């Protein structure tokens, strides 16, 4: 249950989020400058290789987000005390995950257009990612169904766990499907890039930076969710009083 006292904070920021925020700005500034200026262009792919510094970290975050959603959903369902905190982190993580999944797909197809000459290839990884996106858009839709907060938490947790069953099946069937219809022209997305030390370091910084963004967003988002749940709750006392004193006219 939510605590009964009214929220004491006026913003969703805390000492922790501010530290994460500052770190994020520092790391991301480095990634932008290094990715665009310091690192060399690739011999084969040319300048388009720089998309990698956005694409790879956002793909990593997208999958991390859904793992977080799955784990917190499992905690919500299986923990003795069904803590709504788990549900809020699950929801926040799925929202952020969907955003990064869209970034992944957009940067991926831009890169594909430059490298393969096509926006889209029926590559297992791409296809699974697209299905994952639709699945979690469905998950967010389920969170918006009407009902109590507990009902929302239970339903969405079950949906998140079902998605964990579904995604390997989708991935496996797509891999299996492509293996029977092999197209020789498919390039391994990262195989042709010869990465020097700086490129690797920039990519690594990107992963760290995006993870910080993810953490920062989750911290804030789950707190706004807490605030909106609390707003409903703190309105409850007034609503109960109003209800008890309402005039029965009919």
């Amino acid at each position, binding site marked *: 249950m939510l605590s009964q006292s009214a929220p004491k904070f006026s913003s969703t920021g805390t000492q922790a989020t501010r530290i994460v925020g500052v770190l994020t700005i520092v790391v991301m500034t480095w990634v932008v400058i290094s990715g665009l200026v310091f690192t060399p262009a690739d011999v084969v792919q040319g300048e388009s290789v720089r998309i990698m510094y956005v694409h790879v970290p956002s793909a990593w975050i997208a999958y991390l987000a859904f793992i977080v959603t799955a784990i917190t959903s499992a905690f919500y369902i299986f923990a003795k005390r069904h803590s709504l905190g788990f549900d809020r982190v699950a929801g926040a993580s799925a929202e952020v995950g969907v955003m990064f999944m869209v970034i992944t797909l957009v940067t991926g197809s831009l890169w594909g257009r430059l490298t393969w000459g096509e926006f889209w290839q029926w590559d297992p990884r791409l296809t699974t990612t697209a*299905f994952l996106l639709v699945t979690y858009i469905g998950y967010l*839709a389920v969170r918006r169904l009407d009902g109590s907060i507990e009902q929302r938490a239970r339903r969405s947790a079950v949906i998140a*766990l*079902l998605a964990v*069953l579904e995604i390997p099946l*989708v991935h496996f069937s797509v891999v299996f499907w492509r293996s*029977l219809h092999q197209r020789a022209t498919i390039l391994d997305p990262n195989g042709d890039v010869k990465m020097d030390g700086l490129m690797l370091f920039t990519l690594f910084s990107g992963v760290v930076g995006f993870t910080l963004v993810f953490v920062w967003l989750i911290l804030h988002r789950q707190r706004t969710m807490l605030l909106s749940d609390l707003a409903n709750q703190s309105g409850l006392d007034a609503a109960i009083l109003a209800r008890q004193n309402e005039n029965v006219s009919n």
Partner: protein
Amino acid sequence: MKKTAIKTAKRRVASAVFIKDLRIEARSRVVTNQVLPFAGLIMVMFAFALDNDDVLQRVAGGLIWLATIFSLFIIVQRSFAIDTSDSALDSLRVAGIDLSAVFLGKAIALSLQLIALDIVLIAAAFLLYQVQVSVIGLVLLVTCVACATTGLGFVGTLYGGLTAGTNGRETLLPLLLLPVVAPVLIAATRATEAAFGSGGAAISEGWAWVGLLAIFAAVFGVGGSLAFGPLIDE
């Protein structure tokens, strides 16, 4: 001792729900009179759109399963309209009936209706698209239909139960179901193509796909019986 009592109770509930669903269909004939013609029409419309015998023969398997999945949405909604129109689903919840048994009963009834639908669709493919099948191919085809419809029955009932009685269920159901049934669409299509020998596919290729369909059915059979209760409860 107590375990067997629970088991027989579960079987009793599942069979009661199964018989009830099929009896209501036998009497109202909504699926027979509306969904079957709809699915048949889809097959005819595909023929108009593609307008090429070779292409039709090549893609017949995919068209059969696409038509099945489109019809699935309608059958699932009909299946739960039966239970929500006079709040019978509420009564089942109030009565504390084992919801996983309700899930199994409804899913099996749904699968049977899908099998009937697929028989019509496959017959249409023979008539309209001139596909051919050998005896071994027929064995593959029958197994494929059995596994695919079982899996579709499970996921359809699971997500149908979640969306039953909610606002915007007509659009939410496809959004939730389509990504989940993608493996069934891929696997059943390949297995059916192998059975028909479309595009020179060998029958042996089909059995691996049937295996995938069986895994899918097993995963969502177990997952669905566990998840159905928590999903539809208030």
